[in-house]
């Protein structure tokens, strides 16, 4: 069977499965729509949380990032898993006990204020939208590059699927499709990783192969990571396993980014609401455990995949003549994700430090070819010796081909990438739709709405959100990547302190929480906007506050939020008795 038939079979059958599940799980009540009737078993909720959490970026981007960054990539691994410990101990059980539907519900009720509710609604929608645009773009990348289908077509199909199960089944439909999507994406990630680990090191377990020695090629007999360090030294790149060596981020910046990602993860509304769907407090704790276990399978495999891919890439391309590169190289070259400029005219590919060219490859007029048959680009070459541009997002997608795995594996990886993007998009769309129909309409603007009207509003809001997200998937703005720093920074500097203090300090007043959230948001957003949009040229460590990059500034924003909230609370009236009783109630699993 040809590759494209395999692709159709895997992608269409996985889509069929999702639609079937969504139809089976359709709902009629707002409780079903927002929190899946609070009847999701813990293990399944763990899987759903895993799929909800692991986005196109985790599936496709993270291993590639680590393979480029080496040690420094650990900040993503630690940040995006460590947040679950905070979630399991400081947030999830108490929010489940609170028992309502959304994060703005908690903020608005706990701080007895619609101003606080509005701030929370704004943050929830903003954070979720930045994130969802990235998912739709991920869908586009898989379709365009892996399946060779047009991006427009791919995104429309993706939108259609998400639209169908998010509006029909709400949280319940999303939950059970996410369980299926978890299974698809984890198989798609682990199967190629096992095959490559076995090929390269003779050990089929990627986590162990990571620390084993290379079996064949120029570096046979060397430990994989030692070989990487050696090749990096030869090419003049920073040591792969080295921590804060020249050319890598500083210790303070790695710490700040890791911490912002952890607090941000714990404050992301689409993750928090997954814990509203289980039956009680104990189930919330257990599903946090299952969630991190299922996420950990991918997150411990990813750094191994990153290292394997790095060795493979360097061994197959560096100092090799272009005329002998494998087929996958040319395939990705044709989609502008790999490009080679023969700066010294020797016909060999030289890899090295620094960018090979200015910006992302732009093909020359009429797909012109160079003297060795390479695809020419119009980008100005840089002065560095590096001749090779490789988009880091292709590491996972190209892996099965690089390792010469069977065609069905390539198709499975495509289905896995789509599962990762769609499952996260659906969770985010639900946050957006419930923020509008429940928090904004039902709780603020039209409290007399009937349940039927609210459910209809939720479906319409979900539909509108899908269309806007799809538009940005087809026409991705250049600043999508920069916005991701926003999502985590804002979640860390707004929700996380407000929720934690709301549970652990009865005395925290609405004035305290509102001024704290606003300080955190304005500071963090101001810093990111300045360095990313207003004055990108100044975005260098010398200009940063405490040498912390915009990606890590959420940590400072969070500390400011805590400080301002606690100070203002001291000088304002304590919350009313009824609110303090409500906080008491959150703390004890059985108290009414």
């Amino acid at each position, binding site marked *: 069977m040809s590759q494209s038939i395999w692709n159709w079979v895997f992608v269409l059958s996985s889509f069929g499965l999702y639609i079937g599940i969504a139809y089976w799980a359709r709902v009629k009540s707002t409780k079903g729509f927002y929190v899946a009737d609070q009847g999701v078993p813990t293990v399944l909720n763990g899987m759903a949380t895993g799929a909800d959490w692991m986005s196109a970026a985790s599936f496709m981007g993270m291993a590639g990032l680590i393979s480029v960054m080496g*040690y420094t990539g650990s900040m993503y691994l630690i940040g995006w898993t460590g947040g679950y410990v905070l979630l399991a101990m400081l947030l999830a059980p108490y929010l489940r006990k609170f*028992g309502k539907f959304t994060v703005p519900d908690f903020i608005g009720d706990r701080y007895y204020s619609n101003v606080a509710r509005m701030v929370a609604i704004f943050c929830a929608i903003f954070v979720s939208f930045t994130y969802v645009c990235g998912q739709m773009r991920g869908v586009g990348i898989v379709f365009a590059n892996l399946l060779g289908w047009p991006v427009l077509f791919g995104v429309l199909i993706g939108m259609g699927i998400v639209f169908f199960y998010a509006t029909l089944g709400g949280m319940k439909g999303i939950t059970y499709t996410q369980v299926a999507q978890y299974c698809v994406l984890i198989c798609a990630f682990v199967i190629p990783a096992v095959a490559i680990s076995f090929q390269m090191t003779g050990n089929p377990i990627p986590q162990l192969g990571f*620390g084993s*020695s290379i079996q064949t090629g120029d570096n046979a007999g060397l430990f994989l990571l030692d070989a990487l360090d050696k090749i990096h030294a030869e090419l003049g790149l920073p040591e792969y396993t080295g921590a804060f060596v020249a050319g890598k981020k500083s210790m303070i910046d790695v710490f700040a980014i*890791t911490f912002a990602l952890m607090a941000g993860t714990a404050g992301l509304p689409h993750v928090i609401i997954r814990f509203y769907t289980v039956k009680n*407090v104990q189930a919330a704790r257990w599903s946090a455990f299952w969630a991190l276990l299922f996420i950990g399978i991918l*997150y411990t495999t990813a750094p191994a995949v990153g290292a394997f891919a790095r060795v493979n890439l360097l061994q197959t391309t560096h100092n090799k003549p272009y005329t002998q590169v494998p087929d996958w190289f040319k395939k990705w070259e044709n989609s502008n994700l790999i490009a080679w400029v023969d700066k010294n005219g020797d016909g060999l590919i030289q890899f090295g430090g620094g960018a090979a060219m200015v910006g992302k490859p732009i093909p020359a007029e009429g797909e012109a070819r160079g003297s060795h048959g390479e695809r020419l680009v119009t980008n100005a070459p840089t002065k560095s010796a590096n001749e090779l541009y490789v988009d880091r997002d292709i590491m996972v997608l190209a892996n099965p081909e690089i390792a010469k795995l069977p065609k069905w594996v390539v198709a499975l990886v495509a289905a896995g990438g789509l599962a990762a993007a769609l499952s996260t998009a659906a969770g985010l769309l639900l946050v957006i739709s419930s923020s509008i129909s429940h928090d904004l309409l039902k709780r603020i603007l039209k409290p007399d709405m009937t349940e039927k009207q609210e459910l209809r509003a939720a479906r319409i809001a979900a539909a509108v959100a899908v269309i806007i997200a799809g538009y940005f998937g087809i026409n991705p703005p250049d600043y999508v990547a920069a916005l991701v720093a926003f999502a985590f920074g804002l979640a860390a500097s707004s929700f996380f302190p407000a929720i934690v203090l709301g549970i652990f300090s009865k005395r925290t007043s609405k004035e305290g929480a509102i001024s704290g959230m606003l300080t955190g948001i304005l500071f963090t957003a101001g810093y990111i906007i300045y360095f990313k949009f207003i004055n990108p040229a100044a975005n260098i460590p010398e200009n940063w506050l405490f040498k912390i990059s915009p990606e890590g500034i959420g940590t400072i924003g969070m500390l400011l939020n805590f400080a301002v909230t606690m100070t203002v609370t001291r000088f304002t009236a304590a919350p009313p008795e009824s609110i303090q009783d409500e906080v008491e109630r959150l703390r004890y699993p059985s108290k009414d």
Partner: protein
Amino acid sequence: MSTDEKHRQYWRTNIKVLSILLAIWFVFACVLPIFLVEPLNEIRIAGFKLGFWIAQQGTIVVFIILILAYAIIMRKVDAAHGVDQSGTQSTSPGSSPASESKSAEDAKS
């Protein structure tokens, strides 16, 4: 012991448990893989430098164990303080026969 007193004691125990676990969390999230990574990299285990291994593998395993420990410990603490929930609805200790019998056991022990 009154219900209120029991609740206060339960909350103090919860704070104690999570303080200890979060201290371990901080050590594995920030101290070992970031602040102390360079000295730890001097130690080698098979093909790994220890600091690098902790940063890319070890912390994640420890995080999973910490959440598991919290779930197990708190299940016991819930039961010991008579605040565990039986069934899907949250019930107060007084109204549920199951937790009433647990409270009685507590009183004996």
